């Protein structure tokens, strides 16, 4: 009796944990459902269950939404604050889109629907843990829970050499990143003696000097490890290869959700735990942001594969996002969260179109596969056009608002030059984004548009899949995301309100 009284079990707030519990339960249910035979189960029931899981988790996240600096859960291991919840909602949205895009993917059939969707849900739960991590241990667990299922998903198209290769490449490089993060976290722990982010923040400047070499080395290693995940230069080289080789729905998921998760932890770690050190790591991260913006944009210029192009553009976008982290202000936090949301819708629209067109074109994801798309199927060409213009930062799209906010935050945080760098990067990016738009609408060999619009592309041999109506869910994802891109560009206020609420999650900046 007395022994039991001595052991103090942590109080578990099941209400706060409910989204995470829903995800894990859902992942198990999906895995079990996947064991059932029958095409109907594999093609309909399993994805439906996975989608329901995400919707339930999303609804629970909305239900426990609470602004301000909320009390962490489970002995301050996880914080279900507005930052976590808003990022989780982005993960769920990305997950739903990925499920829709995967429905006709060959990778699902090869890996088994149950396994495929379970891994997806597991990865999303890892992202939630990572975004919520208030403790170095949960941070690492979240990071690995996010990464390991993704390694498998990358290699899930087991009959394709490129997919396996991409999986193994991602595994090796991702693990190097994880191990680097681990060593960095170990050094931070060594310097401060704490694993709790709040206590680390309190210890810096008190028990340990701001410029302590052990601490700074730890920060540097952690930052580079996370940079691997967020594909920030110079740790970005794997990105184009892995993105190109992975099944395209997974590429879309990685491009959007992994990046969001990586930036969530960047924000929490740097703006919350290490904010007193901002003068030390600020310039270094700013230099990384500069390099990332330039390298990403220049790298994208020569690409013909749309997936590689989007990978490089994702590198550049990571640079813009990093600018919001660098300034270490509330405004920067809000701008980064805002940009992540806009980044999600723009990229999802682009990837959905790439998936739709690569399925029917024998030229795969080469840029020539979208040539003349404006005439062939405007319903696909418009979303991709809007996505490209949005990523380039044209007004009346979400991308413009996001850049506006980021530049605002950068100038406000005494990093005006970084704001100018964002702008310079956008200029370079025009070269490749506009090339895609030009290919769709201004291709020199585009057939004259008199007469009825041809729906069948000759490359597909007139297969019924060439008709966009044959894959309605892909087109729907593209259209919804494109519509959101425009809507955010014209009426950004609701999203700004959310971003401001996210800004309240971290006190003391």
């Amino acid at each position, binding site marked *: 009796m007395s022994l039991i009284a001595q052991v103090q079990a942590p109080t578990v707030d099941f209400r706060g944990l409910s989204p995470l519990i829903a995800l894990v339960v859902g992942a198990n249910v999906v895995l079990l459902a996947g064991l059932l035979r029958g095409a109907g189960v594999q093609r309909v029931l399993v994805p439906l269950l996975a989608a329901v899981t995400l919707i339930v988790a999303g609804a629970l996240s909305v239900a426990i939404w609470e602004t301000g600096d909320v009390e962490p859960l489970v002995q301050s291991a996880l914080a279900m604050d507005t930052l976590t919840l808003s990022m989780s909602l982005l993960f769920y949205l990305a997950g739903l889109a990925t499920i829709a895009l995967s429905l006709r993917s060959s990778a699902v059939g090869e890996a088994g629907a149950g396994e495929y969707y379970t891994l997806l849900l597991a990865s999303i739960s890892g992202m939630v843990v990572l975004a919520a991590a208030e403790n170095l241990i949960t941070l690492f667990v979240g990071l690995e829970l996010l990464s390991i299922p993704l390694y498998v998903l990358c290699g899930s198209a087991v009959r394709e050499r490129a997919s396996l290769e991409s999986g193994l490449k991602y595994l090796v490089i991702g*693990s190097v990143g994880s191990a680097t993060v681990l*060593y960095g976290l170990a050094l931070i722990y060594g310097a401060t003696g704490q694993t709790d982010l709040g206590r680390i923040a309190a210890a810096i400047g008190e028990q340990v000097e701001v410029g302590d070499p052990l601490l700074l080395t730890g920060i540097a290693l952690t930052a580079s490890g996370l940079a691997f995940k967020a594909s920030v230069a110079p740790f970005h080289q794997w990105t184009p290869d892995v993105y190109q080789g992975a099944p395209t729905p997974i590429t879309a998921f990685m491009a959007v959700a992994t990046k969001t998760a990586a930036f969530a932890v960047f924000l929490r770690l740097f703006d919350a735990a290490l904010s007193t050190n901002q003068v030390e790591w600020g310039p270094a991260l700013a230099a990384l942001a500069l390099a990332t913006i330039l390298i990403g944009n220049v790298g994208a210029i020569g690409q013909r594969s749309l997936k*590689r192009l989007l990978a490089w553009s994702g590198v550049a976008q990571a640079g813009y996002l990093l600018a919001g982290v660098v300034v270490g202000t509330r405004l920067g936090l809000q701008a980064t969260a805002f940009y992540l949301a806009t980044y999600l819708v723009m990229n999802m629209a682009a990837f959905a179109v790439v998936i739709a067109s690569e399925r029917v074109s024998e030229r795969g994801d080469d840029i020539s596969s979208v040539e003349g798309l404006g005439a062939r199927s405007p319903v696909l060409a418009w979303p991709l056009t809007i996505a490209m213009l949005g990523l380039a930062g044209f007004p009346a799209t979400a991308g413009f608002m996001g850049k506006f906010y980021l530049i605002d935050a950068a100038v406000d945080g005494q990093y005006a030059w970084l704001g100018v760098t964002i702008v310079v990067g956008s200029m370079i990016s025009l070269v490749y984004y506009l090339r895609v738009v030009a290919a769709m609408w201004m291709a020199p060999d585009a057939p004259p548009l008199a007469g009825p619009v041809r729906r069948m592309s000759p490359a597909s041999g007139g297969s019924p899949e060439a008709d966009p109506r044959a894959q309605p869910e892909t087109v729907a994802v593209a259209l919804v995301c494109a519509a959101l891109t425009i809507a955010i560009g014209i009426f950004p206020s609701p999203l700004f309100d959310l971003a401001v609420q996210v800004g309240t999650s971290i006190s003391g900046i």
Partner: protein
Amino acid sequence: MSPVWFVALSAVIFCIGVGGVLMRRNPLVVLLCLELMLNGGNLALISFARMHGTGDGQIFALIVMVVAACEVVVGLGLIVAMYRRRLAIDVDSMSELRG
């Protein structure tokens, strides 16, 4: 013996791991080197835990071991899948994806 030496040893192990990942071509050896990196981190955690007299680092190390095992399983699984398909398992010859 001062824990500083253990930390130094952990750094050496970590660096050997990094070097191995960068230089070795056989994916099995690469996986081994990844393990070295993680174990370097583990050793550092345990030494720091000893230094500070708190248990956090040791718990951390235990969790890392579990995670490392998962990673190796996935890695080996992928290698086996490639081997079954009679693909070259030489990292340098993986050149399908390039550009």
